[in-house]
């Protein structure tokens, strides 16, 4: 199975340790690009290498898959999109993204259809879930990407001293 593929003028590919350290730092090194998950930003290259190593291990166990999205021509990475918590018994997974400011809703609308097709058709998953911090930067985006709002889960984690509610969205293979 080929996990790398092109979608229009973009390329979705698995990350490469050693080559993608700077790109990953540009995505995961800025707190405002992570507040929707939420998680703390990475601060140095050791953390980036550790993140890359964990991405590889989780992919090898098929519990997660991570794609870096870049322009076909300029090869500038502008997004990491992943499926995590893959549950092969329930045929479900959680979608997560980290985006640079250059990645707009229009860009995601161009990238996601092929990615979703791969997830539902090639991987055979049925339910893809997206959890965003309530009131995050990306509120309103899931619906425009074809996801349905399912509710808000209260106080799912504590982040920087505050209880965080997560809005849940889903897209089904049959939608």
């Amino acid at each position, binding site marked *: 199975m080929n996990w790398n593929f092109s979608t229009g003028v973009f390329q979705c590919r698995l990350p490469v340790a050693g080559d993608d350290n700077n790109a990953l730092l540009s995505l995961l090194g800025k707190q405002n690009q992570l507040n929707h998950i939420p998680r703390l930003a990475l601060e140095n290259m050791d953390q980036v290498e550790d993140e890359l190593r964990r991405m590889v291990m989780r992919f090898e166990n098929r519990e997660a898959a991570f794609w870096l999205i870049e322009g076909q021509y300029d090869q500038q990475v502008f997004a990491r999109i992943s499926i995590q918590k893959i549950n092969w018994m329930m045929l479900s997974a959680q979608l997560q993204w980290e985006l640079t400011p250059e990645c707009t809703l229009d860009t995601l609308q161009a990238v996601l259809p092929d990615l979703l097709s791969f997830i539902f058709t090639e991987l055979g998953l049925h339910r893809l879930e997206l959890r965003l911090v309530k009131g995050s930067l990306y509120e309103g985006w899931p619906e425009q990407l074809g996801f349905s709002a399912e509710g808000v*889960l209260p106080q799912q984690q504590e982040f920087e001293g505050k209880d965080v509610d997560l809005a849940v969205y889903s897209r089904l293979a049959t939608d």
Partner: protein
Amino acid sequence: MRFTPELPFDGGRLKPLQSEDTAALFALYQQPELPGQKPLQDESQIGRLIDLSVQMAATQRGIMWAIESDGEVCGILSGFDWQASQLRIMLRADGLPVLSDEHRAAAIKAAVDFLIEKYHLRNFGYQWVSGQNESIPGLLGTLGFERCAVLRDAWRTGDREFADIHQFHFISTAEKPQPKKLGDDDNPGQNLDRDVNHGGTH
């Protein structure tokens, strides 16, 4: 060491899964309440279930009780997806048709009260799967649970068949524990034979 206590409630009690209840637990799993769940074929699987229930409680990953009502084991109360550092857990109570709503509710309340008191958990989720006993959502409401989300097709019942999960939450108003230094409490993990030293002298 004990990890799962007996908890009495009006009309019954919660008790840890024990080998002496193997036959009753096996009978329970012949009438699974969960949509899509197949009856257990082999009674020896209950032994494995009991072992796992001890291991889960010992490592704060989950907790399981048998629900005893009027002297008979007629249900199982499970706590799973236990996130100790996030102070939350997911619950589900599965029972035989003879388990009354009153006793199911009392069993859930006894477990919640214990988990608040012993482990300071604050966020209790409950997953009700479409097709389960229709009275459970109303029963959860009486316990302070609110329906927060309906997770479409999140429960697989067949090859390509699915059911919705209705997720409820109850948030305890108890104060969060204050972080302390290791050793401030003489409370070695979850050993129920030891108690927290509230005296402040060590």
